[in-house]
């Protein structure tokens, strides 16, 4: 099971079983839905933007351990960040989970581009069919930030 433990690390199982920032924050001034047509998973994202920063962010939905953990860890990480910072983290994250960028197993904080806990999801790169699970929340967040309203994102 060692391979699978790379994918399902303890931190991922923890976030999937006990998702942080789960629920509908009020007030929120951005929101979007994310939908993965491959598996039918859906989630919603709410964001409170203030002075160009993500003051608060939350999500609701149901999905696999990977998509729930990714959403939970994403919301944890993005509070207080600017839109540009959020996008930068997404781009780094995307490169890592798709295997475009290899951060190695013992990357320092600098080398992983500030991904922090999100590095735990790097194991997804070995499971191409699951990359969409890991990026679902991020696509929804991007839609929320860009459209400043409600939108549906399809990760295909």
């Amino acid at each position, binding site marked *: 099971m060692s391979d699978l433990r790379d994918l399902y690390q303890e931190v991922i199982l923890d976030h999937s079983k006990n998702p942080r920032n789960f629920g509908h924050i009020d007030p929120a001034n951005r929101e979007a839905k994310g939908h993965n047509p491959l*598996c*039918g998973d859906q989630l919603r994202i709410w964001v409170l933007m203030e002075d160009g920063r993500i003051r608060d962010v939350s999500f609701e939905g149901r*999905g*696999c351990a990977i998509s729930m953990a990714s959403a939970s860890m994403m919301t944890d990480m993005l509070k207080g960040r600017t839109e540009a910072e959020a996008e930068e983290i997404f781009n780094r994250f995307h490169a890592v989970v798709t295997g475009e960028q290899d951060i190695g197993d013992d990357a320092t904080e600098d080398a992983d581009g500030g991904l922090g806990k999100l590095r735990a999801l790097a194991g997804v790169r070995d499971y191409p069919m699951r990359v969409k699970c890991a990026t679902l929340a991020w696509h929804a967040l991007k839609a929320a930030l860009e459209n400043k309203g409600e939108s549906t994102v399809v990760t295909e």
Partner: protein
Amino acid sequence: MTATDSLPRTAGVYDVERVRADFPILAEKVRGKRLAFLDSAASAQKPRAVIESIAHTYTREYANVHRGVHYLSERATVAYVAVRGKVQRLINAAREDEIIFTGGTTDGINLVAQAYGRTALKSGDEVLITEMEHHSNIVPWQMLRDEKGIVLRVAPIHDDGSLDMDAFQALLTEKTRLVAVTQVSNALGTVTPIRDICRLAHAVGAKVLVDGAQGIPHIATDVQDMGADFYVFSGHKLYGPTGTGVLYGRAELLDAMPPWRGGGDMIRSVTFEHTEYAPLPHKFEAGTPNIAGVIGMGAGIDWFTALDRDGLDAHEADILAYGTARLAEVPGLRLVGTAPEKVAVMSFVLDYAHPHDIGTILDQEGVAVRTGHHCAQPVMQHYDIAATVRPSIGAYSTREDIEQLVAGLGKVREMFG
């Protein structure tokens, strides 16, 4: 039927190991493990006869069909047209020209929706489907609804996955012009009472299209006995190549239908003023067909019909019953679809793990299952779930496959339970 007609063609017992030996892929190791292929409802694996048929066509007998006078064209044409008779015998169609080759089930349903639906149905006419249809038997009718103003009615299912026949009969009225219904649910395995459905539909003057994609690999099918006006299926679920399929239609209906696609091979004569269409079946087969694919589908049908049918049915029933019983013992597992009449499919959910995570872990154990909504989202909505795990069986499935699945679910419990 004489007494000898009902005797199995091969003696006595169904030998699953001999069947398995026909499938080279079953000997493959997957992630270092024995392959337990439990995804035949998505697409069946191919016996050597089909693989060799395709290679043979391209190696020895390939050219375009119905065109050249040369040797290869003649050989390819002979092999190609022979498949129509094989399909006719497989489903007991009255006439060979009632067999139209298509790209698959989806293609066949769209052909009926477009060629039949657009001319025979008018605004206000009702098409009755069921809640358990695959998207391919929903969306073409929605497209027709949006274009022609027909009304789409949906007969609900009971919680065990069987069709609610009282509701079905209540929805079936003189306004119903077409009933489009599956023979077997791909997500639930439910076998619909298709003969009753045809009889009831005909009593109100409606025609019936039967989606046989999941039915034909598991149920001996006689379209005349069933009463189907149209019957569609895919070659690839019947151990044949992808990109092949069949539309059966009663000749009287097919004759009255306009062609769907225009092009070569479907005409008798063409001038710029007027085109005269070819007779059945060519009217519906424009363009160069999937020659090697159709011949390969024929090889698959030959392979399939050479099996001892009673033995096959008994074997699949045994594996389904065994699998259902073994899965029922797994803690936290709920079967989705428990209709009394069921074949081949054991959809389930676990209360502590998502189908995609289950699928990934099973895959590491060499177990191939489909996870997701199975292109039947209304079924998922009925049960208020997003997805299921769907093990499905075929002629080559064994109790060992089931044991490997159950052992894999033990790994899932270690991780998530």
